[in-house]
């Protein structure tokens, strides 16, 4: 039987990230989980990939399948990497769990020429609706935790993230919002709609020259 992995099928947001990456490049995946993105990029784009992952299960799964992954905490271990060591540094669905997202963002663009950041959009209409109608912290597919046990401590909206990039002098090369069905929407041409209908967003960033 041919597996989804062999066909190159990965999660919709990871596919959007993968599409932003050129072949034969060097990449660091921060919070790489079970290594799905690294594996996909190694097989389909000949990317020389590395990963950092906090969970033991994730690291073991990655190394066991031949990926170069270290067990570590992005917030302390990114400091060890030299400047501009990679073409891309990816941080997918993790920035909202960081204690100092701004510093992490700075590190990503110090280590890599480009950074790719994806995160759940807190201004997604279903979340707004839950707060508005139920008056409770939203729980959804992308934010599947109660307020007291969530690892997500720094929520932001697409608009917030764009503003932070402006403040930090970061160039947004590409920005894509994904709706519930994984359909893509360009953020910049229609910020209002992207921020309302985007369940999550993927940004390709670089330092302003």
């Amino acid at each position: 039987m041919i597996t989804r992995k062999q066909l190159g099928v990965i999660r919709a947001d990871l596919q959007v990230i993968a599409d932003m990456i050129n072949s034969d490049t060097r990449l660091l995946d921060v919070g790489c989980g079970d290594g799905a993105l690294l594996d996909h990029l190694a097989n389909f784009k000949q990317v020389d990939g590395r990963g950092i992952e906090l969970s033991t299960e994730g690291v073991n799964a990655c190394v066991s399948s031949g990926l170069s992954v270290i067990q570590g905490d992005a917030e302390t271990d990114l400091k060890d990497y030299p400047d501009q060591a990679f073409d891309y540094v990816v941080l997918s669905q993790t920035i909202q769990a960081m204690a100092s997202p701004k510093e992490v963002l700075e590190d990503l663009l110090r280590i890599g020429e480009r950074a790719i950041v994806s995160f759940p959009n807190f201004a997604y209409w279903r979340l707004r609706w839950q707060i508005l109608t139920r008056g409770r912290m939203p729980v959804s597919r992308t934010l599947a935790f109660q307020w007291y046990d969530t690892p997500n401590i720094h929520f932001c909206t697409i608009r917030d993230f764009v503003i932070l990039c402006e403040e930090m002098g970061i160039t947004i090369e590409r920005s894509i919002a994904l709706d519930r069905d994984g359909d893509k929407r360009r953020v910049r041409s229609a910020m209002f709609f992207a921020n309302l209908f985007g369940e999550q967003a993927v940004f390709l960033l670089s330092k302003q020259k």
Partner: protein
Amino acid sequence: MIETSVPECIDGSTDKSAEESTKVALPGKSVLLGQDQPLRLDCGAELAEFTTAYQTYGKLNAEKSNAVMVCHALTGDQFVAETHPISGMDGWWSQIVGPGKIFDTDRYFIICANVLGGCMGSTGPKEINPETGKSWGLDFPVITVGDMVRAQVMLLDHLGIDQLFAVIGGSMGGMQVLEWVASFPDRVFAAIPIATAARHSSQNIAFHEVGRQAIMADPDWCGGDYLSQDKNPHRGLAVARMTAHITYMSGSALHRKFGRRLQDRKSFTYGFGADFQVESYLRHQGVTFVDRFDANSYLYITRAMDYFDLAAEHDGVLANAFKGAKTRCCVLSFTTDWLFPTEENRQIVRALNAVAANVSFAEIESDKGHDAFLMDEPEFHMVLSGFLNGSAVLRGLRQADS
């Protein structure tokens, strides 16, 4: 495993001389090196001629690309995957080396050499000094981990192998692996240092010193000259082994294995015999160790570990040791290893990251302490196997035909 024969004291009943206990014709291979180009040691001395005893498993392929160097730990030897010629025990890493195992001998060519300074056939203090015709004893020059690795490189040259597919080792074996990556990066495709450190900690030096003092306090040590006086400081060496053995296990593993259970008795004897199982076990470890190990070798090899400090050799910056290394590295540590704790291993990872080297790192959950790397630890074996296979694919090594 609890031994039923309780040594009531480590003095033991058999008082074999070292000559007797180790004068067994050892299986395996042996080669005389350094004849063309002497081995210059870190201490300044030169070894113009020295023997390396080694063992190999599997076949070197036509491209000579499937060689794996296994580096043994302090008291290990070249008998990785076969019954030990003296102790009769299984090879120390037969769990993972053999046909169909992680280090599949149908796929890889495994080499393991007894370290320089060792006592299983390689030149060391026990062997004959060609200049005097007597055992070297303390006249043997002090050797370092770097010297051990340079001797291995000479063996590799002798075997006509340019690049090892992999080099692997735990504990002192891991130190050798790091030395390989730092000094001969082009000759190693993949490196797996396990439960080790880039420098020996003061705590570990302290434990070694206790062991050495135990040996040297034994009157039969004779200032290191016991071989020519037909003596053997086996009591001192046994105590050294007992101390060291405690450091190889975690407190919880010791407790799980022995608790406070008594050995073959229902109550205390109100004396100093081995009342507790843990005492009996340790004494057994000590007494059996002296049959296969030389006391002076123990002094020299522990010293080599103490002197190991890879950063110091590179202007105090460990990362400098790995600059430009293209070797794929996989560092592994164990949660309850307090001899070479995860933090020490992580420092190696940090240094490799600092030069953007290709590195994997996993901390394996185990309650078996430092010795976990020698045990049946499924998670450890899974990660090891994954890294090795991934590397083999990149190196273009085919699966063994089955």
